[in-house]
Structures are given as C-alpha cells and as structure tokens.
C-alpha cells in the first residue's frame, strides 16, 4: 500500500495505480478538510442558519 | 557473508504422469493427504467441498458396452507458468497470497496471508484450489499425526498442492549442511510420486535435460513449454495456462480428452 512495504515495487503498475489512488484520496481528503475548516471559520464568524440553505439546490 | 544461492540455474519443477500406468488406486491422493495435513470431514462425498490437493478423475471414452473404456487422470496443482509466471491464479490474488517463483517454477500459497476471497479459485480451470469451508477438526488424539513441515490451514482460506515444497526445503537444508547448492534428482520428490505403486508419476526439473521428466516430454520452452514427445499432452493446452504437469498416453481418445476441441469429436464425458 505504501512504498517500503514488501509488496511494493517501483514499477508502472504501482506508480499509476497507487498514484491514482493517493491522488483521489488526496482530493477527497483536502476537499473535506477545506469544507470543515471553512465551515468552522464561518461558524466562528457568526454565519448561521438564518441565511437558509435552499438556494444551491 | 557469502552469497551464492542466487547464481543457481532456475529450475522448473514439473511432473509427468503416465496415464497408461495409472490404475486409479488412490495411493497418490492418500499419500498427499497424509503428507500435507489435509483435513477431513465426516462426510466427504460432496466432491465439490472435499479438499483433495491431488484428485484422480475417471475419464471414459463415452462408448457403450462393451467398447467402453476408462482412464484415470490424477490432477495435482498444475503450477501453471502462464506467460512469464502469470498463471491464471497468481495475478488475480488481491493480497499477494499466492506467488510464482522463477527459481523453482512453483506456485505458492501462503495461508496466513489469504483472506478467502476465492478469486483464485474462480481463475483456476483445473479446480486445483480448495477452500476451507469448515474449521479443520481432527478427532481427539488424531492431531498427533500432523506433520510440522506443513502449516495447518484455518477455516476461510484457500489451499492447494505445493508440489510438497517443504520437501524441497528439507532437502536444501541437508544440502546446505553438506556444502551443496544443488539437489540431486531423487532428493526432492513429491509425496504422490513417491507413493505411486505403479510408478506412473515422475517428478523433476523440466529445465534439466538429465532429469527424467525432461526426457519424457521434451518441453519446448520457446513455445510455452509445449511437449514434443509424441504421446505427451497437457490439460487445456489451448488456454495458454502453460501448466507444468504433463500427461502421457498411448490412447488417442485420452489425449483428446485433455483439451477442448471445436468439432466435438473425441470429447470425453465424465462418467456418471
């Protein structure tokens, strides 16, 4: 799963496949972190439910 | 530290089974079970959940009485080489629990790594892989007969014939002690080979022209190990699995029964 593991080899298969995987995981992770942080900051800034949330449907 | 094992010429351990000699007595199956700590259940008559690393099939020529003829075909794991070691089962294992060694040509199965997805079983056209549907249970006291050379398998994992690889390990141990790095032909023989009372099974290094197996089938390594001896054939040759178990038979219908053919002639029918 990670470089350095017994099964890991530095070949095309691992680089492409695992690269793709970590890339996807990275995007998901960063996106989620971004949302949470932003929401936390917004909440701290006092932004709240009063805006209603229907406009983006 | 000295290092020399790596320089050994790669071996391709394989088996030649002479079907004219095989009498279907079942000694190979029993010897295999006894050697490899194969578990057994109270009812083993459902052959599709009965673990038999070595299984003897009964083939018939499908002709009516009295022209009927039968032939027994012992089927261990074929230790397919596929293309460059990509045997049908090895490449599909998601957890790297099965592997192909270019040193010995043996397809290994590591029981503690296997998590039981059974993809390899789906991949194997020879049904040489068996799943432990049940916990292995020995009647009280009978676990004393278990050999320490072969790991006992737990429920929920796949197992198969290893060409008695532990015997290779044992023989190599002795060789190391004696300062050798190569084994003589008779030093490493599988349990079934040793047990066959008819002498139908021959085992050895297919790459070594001095070994009997090589002489018997003359494998053409340039063409996926295809046998060049006239009466030799392999099971499902056309699928390109490149198995290392070869069969010999002087009977044409038997040789034809080893593979599928389009015209449908000479197809054997399972005896029922």
């Amino acid at each position, binding site marked *: *799963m990670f470089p350095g593991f017994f099964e890991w080899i530095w070949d095309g298969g691992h680089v492409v*496949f*695992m690269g*793709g*995987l970590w890339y*996807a*995981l990275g995007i*998901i992770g960063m*996106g*989620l972190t*971004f*949302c949470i942080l*932003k929401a936390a900051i*917004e909440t701290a800034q*006092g*932004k*709240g*439910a009063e*805006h209603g*949330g229907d406009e*983006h*449907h | 530290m000295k290092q020399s094992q790596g320089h050994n010429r790669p071996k391709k351990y394989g088996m030649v089974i002479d079907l004219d000699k095989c009498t279907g007595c079942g000694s190979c199956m029993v010897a295999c079970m006894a050697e490899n700590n194969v578990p057994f259940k109270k009812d083993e008559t459902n052959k*599709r*959940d009965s673990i038999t690393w070595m299984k003897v099939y009964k*083939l018939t020529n499908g002709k009516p009485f009295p022209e009927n003829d039968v032939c027994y*075909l012992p089927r261990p794991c074929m230790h397919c080489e*596929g293309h460059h070691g990509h045997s*049908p*089962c090895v*490449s599909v*294992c*998601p*957890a*790297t*629990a099965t592997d192909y060694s270019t040193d010995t040509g043996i397809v290994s199965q590591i029981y503690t790594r296997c*998590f*039981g*997805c*059974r*993809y390899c079983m*789906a*991949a*194997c*056209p*020879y*049904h040489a892989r*068996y799943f*432990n*549907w049940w916990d292995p249970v020995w009647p009280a006291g009978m676990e004393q007969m278990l050999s320490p050379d072969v790991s006992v398998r*737990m429920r*929920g*994992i796949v197992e198969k014939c290893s060409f008695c690889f532990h015997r290779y390990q044992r023989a190599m141990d002795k060789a190391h002690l004696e300062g050798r790095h190569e084994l003589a032909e008779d030093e490493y023989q599988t349990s079934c080979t040793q047990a066959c009372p008819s002498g139908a099974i021959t085992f050895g290094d297919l790459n070594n022209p001095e070994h009997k197996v090589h002489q018997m089938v003359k494998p053409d390594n340039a063409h996926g190990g295809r046998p060049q001896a006239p009466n030799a054939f392999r099971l*499902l040759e*056309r699928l*390109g699995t490149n198995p290392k178990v070869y069969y010999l038979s002087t009977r044409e219908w038997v040789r034809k*029964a080893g593979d*599928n*053919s389009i015209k449908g002639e000479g197809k*054997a029918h*399972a005896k029922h």
Partner: protein
Amino acid sequence: MDSALIPQGVRRCSLGKFAFFIGIVGAVLLWGVYAMLLCWLKGLNQTNMNDYYGFALWIWADLAVIALGGGAFFTGFLKYIVGKDELKNIINYAVLIGFICYSSALLILAIDIGQPLRGWFIFWHANVHSMLTEVAFCLSCYFAVLSIEYLPLVLENRQLNKVPFFHNLAHNMHEIMAVFAATGAFLSFFHQGSLGGVAGVLFGRPFSFREGAFIWPWTFFLFTWSAAAYGPCFTLALTKLIEKVTRKKLVGDKCVDLLAKISGWMIFTYIIAKIADTYYWATVTAPEGGFTLMDFYSNNPMYGIWILVLEIVIGGIIPALILITKKGRRSPFLLVTAVIFGCIGVSVNRWVMVLQVMAVPVMPFDTWAMYYPSWQEVATTILPVAYGVILVALSYRYLPIFPQEKELNY
C-alpha cells in the same frame, strides 16, 4: 410527534403508520443480520457455495447493486461535469440510492470473504495486478465520496440545519460538490470497469475471458458503459416506485425525460458494443480455447441460449428502443417497462458474468456445476434491500430529498 423533524411544507404519514412500516422491514433486516452473524461466526459453510462456486449469489448481488447504483456517479457526472442542471431534481435521490448500493456492496463483501478479520490485507498487502484490488480501492474510495455527497443532505434536516456549523458545512460541501463528483466519476469509471475486468481477465475460463486493450479486457469497458447506461434506469425505476408508494409526484417530467433519454442512448450504444463483443467472443476468442458458443449454453438444466437473448434483446435492445424514442419514454407504461427491463438486463449480465462463469465446465471431462443459494445467502442478500428501504424511508421522511416535491404537489 416528529413533525419538527419533517422538512417544511411537505406532508408525511403519521408516525405510527411509519413506525409500523419500519417495523416490518426491520424484521426482515434482523433476519438478514442473523444470517450474517451465522456466516461470520460459523463460517462460509453456511452457504451453498463450494469449490466450483467460489463466487456465487453474493458476488452477483455485489456486481448488480454496483451496476444499478451506477446512477449516482453517472447522474453526478452529467450534472456537475457535463452541466445538465435539470438533473438537480433527481441527483439527491440518485446519490441516496448510490449510497445504499455501495454500502450494501461493501457489507456483502465483508461477509463473503472467508477471513473477514483479514479483510484489510486487500489494502495493506495490495497486489496491484489484481482486478479485485482495483475494485476494493475504488469501491471504498467511491463509497467515501458518496458519503460526502449524502452527508449534506442529512445536515439539511430541519433540526440539524439549525446548528450553524452543520449549516455552513452543508453549504460549503454543496459549493465544491463538483470536485467530489468529478473524483467520484473518475473512481467509478475504474471500479465499474475493474468489476468487469474481474471476469474478463480469467484466461482459464473461456466463458468470461475477453481480449482487450492494454491491461483491460473488453468487459472492463462494457461494465463501465453498462453501469452508466443502466444505473439511471434503476434510479428512474425507484423514482417511479417511491412515487407510487407515496402517491405523490416527486420528480418533474422534464428531469425524468432527460435522464431517460440519456440512459436510452447509453443503452443503445452499449448494446451495440455488447453485441459486437459477443460476436467476436463467440467466433474468435472462445474457439481459440476450443469452445463453440453453444458449448456454453447446452447440456445443462438452466443455462440455455435464452439467457443471452434475455440479456441482449429484452434487457438491452427493447429498453434502448423505448427510451430513445420520444413517444416511448413519454408513455408512463413504456417508460416503466423500459427501466425495469433495463434493470433486468444488467442484472442478468452480471449474473452470467459471475455464476455462469462458474457453471461452465472447462476441463472436457468435467460436468456443469449447478448451484442454488442457501437461505443464509438469500437472507444476507435481502438484508441490504431491507436496509435500503429503511434508509430511503427515513431520508424521504426527514430530509429534503426531492426539491420539486412542494412545487409539484401543493
């Protein structure tokens, strides 16, 4: 009693009635859970699988729900990437169905493996050459994406949404949903494909083996394609079903029509590719292994050529023709017929690519292997259905799943 939780401006049945309904489905769920526990504690001997049927009902169920759940990624792809904004009216429901399908698939996989406690080996000790590894990785990742897509819906529950942090989080997630959707689509293209690859790479099994491009057999592409084509069928079928159950119109005709049209053209193109693949396989690939087409469809009590006809004609050509014609998809009856046929078609395809693969004898002296599932297998397969029904019911009752509900009904 629970009116405070119910979205504003919509009407729902009484809590008692709802609880009764949930109770009945819950009983089925518990039955499934019991069977699941049996399989975990006593092992897979509880199933009717055997050494010939290492893959059976469960793997089919897995493949089928993932194909049917493909509506989520494809609708998301269409809405967020292609920009078909009309689909916003169905995307929530599609996401919910996808979420149910994928969580079910993961659960079934966890039951299906012989050593569930070692399940993590597939990630930890991954063999990247195995299609199943690809499946496991993409499946898990995409499930994470679906969870992320479903989460804001949950947060939009009337009460939860009053919490400022949740409100903001839901809002922010909606803002960047396109990123998630794109990632999800990327992952889905792969895992749907690798599920096809699972069968297609088995060169020891002439029934499933296909040639292909690079490391991917043709089934890789066919599976992705068919999931994209038939997934929306399932979304539409379930939309019609929930509309029937709730006796309300929940998704506008325009949206349905658009999705049906896209699905129709996808099926149409897919089925052409599938026919081409089948032809090539029957005339070139299989004969190379010594098999004729009819070897795969004769001498056994079940798998006749009818199954190929069912898959391609009834499950492919007919729904495609209905859905690509305006008249067809606008006729409520034909539309429902088409989406149901479509669901059957893709399910049959997944069935043969799992179970018939196992059934066909490969060694000339071997015989057909027939199989029927044990009750434990059936129960654990129904378990996710019950779970899905409950999750849909809860979501429908408490979450704003259908944005058009108010405008279409009140």
